Each structure stands twice: as C-alpha cells, then as structure tokens.
C-alpha cells in the first residue's frame, strides 16, 4: 500500500538505533515495534515491499505518542514527525485508523461556543463525580470565566480551544507578563478557535489545513496583520509553526515565521522584562516535547525563569516524553500511564516544590497523579505581580 511517504525522507534512516532510548514507548515496552526505527522499518515494508497492513502494523503506528523525541537524537536528521503524520493521514483516509467517534469528538474544538457549552457539562459532571478517573482531568473545569480583553495590537495572544475553556488563567497570566514588558496584546479569541494539532496527530490533516487557512486569513488583517503571534501552549505553537510545511505556500511560511512560543518571545526581549521579585522554592523544568524536540526552543524557558527563580532544577531523562500526547492519554491510557510512571520517578528523584510545564496536556496528565504543575508564565506573573 502506498503510504504517500516521500522516498528520500524514508531513505534517510540508516537503522543505527540511536533513537530507541529517546522513544517513550520503546522505553516502557522494550519492543522494537514500538520504536522509531521499528516504525520506519514497517513504513518501508508497507510502502516499498507491499507488506500487509496488519493489526500489529497499525498498533505500531497508533502507539506512537508523536513526541518526536527521536528527531534531535537522530544524527541523520530523519523527519520522523512528518513521516508519521503522513502515514496516519493515509491510513485514516483509508478507514484503517481513527474511528468515527474519535473524529466526532474533535469537531467541537473549533467551535468555541460549543466547547464552552461542553465544558459547562464537564464541569457539572465533575462536581457530580461523573467523570471517569482515567480521563485524567486534573483541573477543575470552570463554569464561567472572566473574558480576555485587548490592550493593544503589538502582539496577538493565541487563546486556542481547550486551554481557553479550561485554563484561561494561564492566558491571563501570560497577557499580564506581556503587558508588563510593554506589549499591547490582542487575544485571538473567536478569530482563531483551534490550531488543529490534535487533528493532525490523529491523521485528520484536512481538518488542520482548514483551520490553518481560516486562521491565516483572520489573523492577517487590519492592525494585527503583521503582529507576532504569541502562544502559551507548546503543542499549538509547534503546529502553527508547521503550517508552512503543511500548506506548502509562501503565505503559510510567512505566517509560521510570526509564531513564537511565549517564553521564546520573552527570551528575545529579556531587557524589557521588569526586575520583579525572586521566588523561593525549587522548580523542576518539564519540557513539553513540542517545545523541546519539535521547536527546540526549550532553553528559553530557562532563560526567562532563571531571572526570577534561583533554584531551577533539570530532570535527568534527556527530555523524555511524559506520555500526555494530546488525546494519547485517553486513547492509549495504559501505555500513557506507564510512560508517566517513569516521568514521575524522575521528578521525584529531584524532589521539587513545583514542576513548570508550558503545555496544558502535560500539566493535566501529570497533575492527574498529584504532580504539582504550573505554567512558566504563572510563575513569572507571580514574580512580577506578587
């Protein structure tokens, strides 16, 4: 079966295996079929040697968290993330992956009002203890939230879907920090309801392309037409930086170049951040995979937090994934839990007071087992505003 993979990209892997140790599913399973090298081998077998797409082959692809921890580990620079997204897209189109109910579940993400209504129901269910534990919802989903207000047009604050519905206080903290650095902020709100990252991971790239096209239009008009787009969720910023590749147009590449993770942006404007106060306590940095392995801008978190937190500690696992992976923690609950157990052990070894993580998925996943997580912007906000 043709997986629509680029032959040259598929050929760059020399099968050395250096990626294995950086793959969370290989780490917990020890199984070659759950490793990047193994998955690439199976892609080759399917596309080049017409091997059957068996249940086991599908499981190999489905179990990938798409953390892309293998990419920085690869001296041959195999574009694994793209290979896996294309593979999933082809298999989803062929009806072999991503069932209807999963597709349906993703639809509301692009509709802020629908998501808002859904969230109220989740909030009600949570209070009534009706939410199954395995969903790992560690936040108390709020009933109502204070709306975000525009303060200028220097930068756009991307507010997104789930995060805006459930963790708007992070956006508010980020906006206050940006404003403290002298930037006028326009929250994206209804202009850009969803980045499409979860869809892309599930092989529903057409949906992602639609969101991308819409967002590029609405965020490239008027006073904010050239403004930098600041994102406080690493999964979203990674996806939006990939629009150039996804759509393959010059406009998309230009749009992508306007996208910054919020720490990345602040690190570039460090001189504009006020002194603030020094925060006590030990903070461990848990790099979201899409910040570290995909965007590779995780040093910025340290640059910014280092100004306000003397006791920053690193985790000893080379940035191995925590197992959240967007919808992965629900779809592959068992594997996801095993990966998290590993991460929790690594965190415990450092015994921090707080764990800073710049991605809502990671925070919720770790928070579900009692890890005290916080977004880096909430810490900076605390240092600046008490």
């Amino acid at each position, binding site marked *: 079966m043709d997986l629509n993979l680029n032959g040259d990209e598929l*050929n*760059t892997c*020399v*099968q*050395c*295996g*250096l*990626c*294995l*140790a*950086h793959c969370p599913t290989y780490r917990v*399973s*020890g*199984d*070659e*079929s759950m490793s990047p*090298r*193994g998955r690439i*081998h*199976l892609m080759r*077998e399917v596309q080049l*040697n017409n*091997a*059957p*797409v*068996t*249940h*086991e*082959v*599908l499981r*190999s692809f489905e179990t990938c968290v798409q953390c892309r921890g293998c990419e920085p*580990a*690869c*001296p*041959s*620079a195999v574009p694994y993330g793209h290979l896996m997204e294309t593979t999933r897209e082809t298999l989803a189109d062929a*009806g*072999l*992956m991503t*069932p*209807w109910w999963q597709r349906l579940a993703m639809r509301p993400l692009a509709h802020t009002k629908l998501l808002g209504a859904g969230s109220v129901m989740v909030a009600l269910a949570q209070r009534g203890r009706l939410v199954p534990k395995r969903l790992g919802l560690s936040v108390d989903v709020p009933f109502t939230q204070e709306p975000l207000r525009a303060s200028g047009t220097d930068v756009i604050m991307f507010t997104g879907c789930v995060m805006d519905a459930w963790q708007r206080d992070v956006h508010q903290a980020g906006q206050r920090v940006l404003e403290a650095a002298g930037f006028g902020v326009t929250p994206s709100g209804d202009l850009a309801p969803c980045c499409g990252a979860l869809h892309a991971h599930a092989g529903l790239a057409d949906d992602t392309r639609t969101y991308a096209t819409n967002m590029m239009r609405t965020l490239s008009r008027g006073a904010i037409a050239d403004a930098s787009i600041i994102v406080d969720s690493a999964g979203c910023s990674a996806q939006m930086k990939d629009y150039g590749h996804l759509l393959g147009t010059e406009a998309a590449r230009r749009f992508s170049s306007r996208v910054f993770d919020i720490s990345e942006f602040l690190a570039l404007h460090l001189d504009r951040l006020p002194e603030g106060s020094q925060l006590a306590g030990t903070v461990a940095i848990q790099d979201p995979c899409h910040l570290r392995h995909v965007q590779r801008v995780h040093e910025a978190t340290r640059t910014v937090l280092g100004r306000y937190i003397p006791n920053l500690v690193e985790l*000893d696992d080379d940035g191995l994934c925590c197992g959240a992976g967007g919808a992965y923690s629900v779809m592959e609950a068992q594997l996801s839990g095993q990966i998290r157990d590993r991460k929790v052990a690594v965190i415990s070894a450092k015994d921090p007071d707080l764990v800073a993580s710049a991605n809502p998925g990671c925070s919720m996943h770790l928070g579900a087992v009692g890890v005290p997580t916080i977004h880096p912007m909430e810490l900076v906000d605390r240092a600046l505003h008490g």
Partner: protein
Amino acid sequence: MSMLEKARRRLGDRGARAEPATDDDRLLSELRLALAPDRVRFDGAERSLHAKDASVFRGGVAGPSCFPVNTEEVQAIMRIAAAHGRGVVPRGAGTGLAGGAIPLGAPIVVALTKMNRILSVDTDSRVAWVEPGVINLDLTRHLTPMGFHFAPDPSSQQVCTIGGNLANNAGGPHCLAYGVTNAHIMAMEVVLADGDVAMLGGLDPEPAGLDLRGVFVGSEGTLGIATKIAVRITKNRPAVRTLLLSFDSVSDAANTVSGIIAAGIVPAALEVMDHRITVAVENYVGAGYPRDAAAVLLAEVDGLDDGVGIDADRIAEIGRQHGATDVRTANDDNERALLWKGRKTAFGAIAQIAPDYYLHDTVVPRSELANVLEKVYAIADNYDLKVMNVFHAGDGNLHPLLLFDSREPGVLERVHAAGKEIVEASLDAGGVLSGEHGIGVEKQAYMDRLFSDDDLDHQDRLRRAFDPGCRANPGKVIPMGHSCADIQALRRVPTGVWG
C-alpha cells in the same frame, strides 16, 4: 462491531493465514504457556523487525519472538527450543554492526529488553548486578551520584544494553586506558542451551576453575544467554583534560598516536577523525571542530590534577613534533561533552553525505596506522568510492567507512571488493578482523585468513563444550565448513515470511 474493527479483523485473518501451521503452532502454544500470550509474538511485523539489527546484512529470518522477564522464563524458552530442535538468538537493542543478532533459519528470538533492572550496587566490592537489558548509559547515570561509572563506552552507549556489550565484548573510546568489556565483567548467571543455569566467574579475583566467564564474554550469544551480570564499577576521576589537535595530514595524526604510545603514556582515549567526517560531525554538533584540518586527534587524559597536566603537556609536545598545526584544550565540561557527542554520533552523521555506508572494524599495530591508512585511501580511490576514517587510534582500531548509494547499479560489488582489500591490508600489517564489533555473519568469510583449520576447530570445540547441539545463535562466528556453522544455518526457511 465497528467498521474499523471489522476491517482490521479481516486484516488479522489475512496475517494469520500467511503463517505456517503445525510445528510452529505447537512451539508457539508452549512458549505462550511458559511466558504470557502477549510476550510471545509471531506476526509478520515482529518477525520482520527482529530479522535485522543495525548492520547492513539482510536475509535474516526470525521465528517466534519472546520477551522474557526473568531467568526462569529464559530457561523455559531454552528447554522448549531444545525439545523442538530450534535455535535461539538473544537480542538487546539491536545496535550490533556485524549481524550478530540476525536470526538465521527462523530461530526463536529472545528479546531481553524487558529484563532491565539494576539489581544492586556494592561500592565495597566495586560491583553492580544488573539484568542484561539495562542500557549502558542508564547504568552510568545511576552510578554518577555515587562517584562511579561503567567504563566501556561504545558510541551507541545511550541505547545499547549491557547484555549486548557482554555478548560483543564491546569497546569504546575510553577502553584504551580501562580495557574492553571483558575486563569489567566479574560474574554472570547464564542459561545454557540445555536450559541449565550456571554461575560463571565470581566476585573474587581468581575464581576456581576455567575462566568460563572470560570465554563467554564476546561469544556473540553462541554459548547461552546471560540473565544476571556482575559488572565492575570504576571510580570517577577527579581531573580530566581533553585536547583537540589539528593536522595537515592523516599520517601526521597517526604518527602522533604511535609517538604517544611509544612515550609510555596511556591516555584515557585517543581518537582520530579525517577531514570529511570532521566536517560532517561539525555540521551536526557545532562543537568547534576545525573544518579545514586534514585530520584531528581527540586526546583525553584523566586521573589526578598534576599527573593529568604533565601528560597533557607531553601529548601536546609530541603532537607539535609530528606537525600539529593547532593544539586546543577544552575549556569546560560543556565543551568536552560537545566534542565527545560529535565523535560518538559520527556514523549517523554520514547520512548527510551518502545514504549508505559499509563499515569495517579491523585492528592494526599502532606503528602501522599511517601505513595502513594510506592503503585504505588508495584502495577506495581505486574503486572510485568515498571513504571516511574515524577510529580508536590508541588501540589501532580502524573504522574505515565506505560511502555509497545502494540505488547506484553495481556499487555494492565495488564496496565489497574494496572492503576485502582493506581487510587484507590490515591483516598483512599484522592486524586482526575486528576490534569491537565482532564477527557475526559479516566477517565469517575472513576467519580462515586469520586462523588455520586447526585453530578454528579448537574454537568450535570451545563452543560445543557449552552447547553441544549448536543451538545458541546458530550459524554465527565460526565460518561454514566447521561443525557448528553447518548444523542450523541451513535449516528450512518457513514459508509466508515477509521482510
């Protein structure tokens, strides 16, 4: 049932029909009963994956794959294999470069990656007990807070397993001063081909009996499967200095290396990279390797402050005497780590230049390094191939990499012919076939260039003393024409196997 599930059920049926029935079915059900159903696999995907390792060798055929979690399960696998007359191939992370883990004749593949616990660390006896699936670098990370490390550091140490290190008698840059894996294995529990468990070696310095532990290390899985391993742990050195010397020719670098050895200095590591590989590595790591040098020598000394200073100064001086154009010392741990990251990922960085490479692993006397390297370049030129050299110079362990694109017609024949001449040039200079990658299936054909029939016959006796039925990793190390190579390798290959 959803449509998706139905579609997949159909696929599953198709997969199942492709598998052979009868003997394999009985074998499978016995294995599943002994382990657990989900830890015994026989699907096409798994078999295709386990037919390979990191070598260029193709043509392996895997039987059932087992993932045991303890010694008893390994024992059960061995007994079932014996009852069915099947071979057994142990497998770690599959990073071997000589095809040692490639299954020949559909043997049972025993993946030891789930046996990955560090069982104990005893700093009094300087020993750690580990299971074979523990990753080399994980062990060193575990030991770091105690002030110790595991000395063998193959370039794949971030992913290769201690069991694999043991099977291959793995080396690494720092084996120059500390010795290869065999010097760091004190004892081990092994499961022999008949299913018996034996404890080889001991924590005492001169254990009674033959040195069966020493013989088992480096035997590439042909003597049994190690299930618990006592490794020697080495105290971290308080002082380390890393020098980077640049040269106008590879010969100057090679002569510097033999000059250092001749001066009675035993550095922790002496690594040479030629121009091409240095540039490729620098593109990947940006460690500050010179892009214009014909060769660089990475030299590291460790120990106590003063001695390290004395040795580093002498190395720099010997380098200058041999024409070093620049001598640089790494300023801090960060710079040193980057230099080493570059050296250790060198093979992978080659994909920037060509999609395929064929790597040799010969060792020559250190005084012959310059001479043999000159021949290596001439041979590659002769066959119109690009060659890159990156090697453990202090041990005389060459790693010439022949670069090619397998899509080019006829190139493989040239690569093999050039490889053969390189091996012969190394042997003629008084060298050997492999310094650390092993013989596997890759270098079997050259064994009779190094050993006589009688020599090989005695190696075969050694092997059969452990495994009279020749069922442990059949068809490896000893070339065809000697008993153990013949028995299993030519077994029938089951039908319906893809990959």
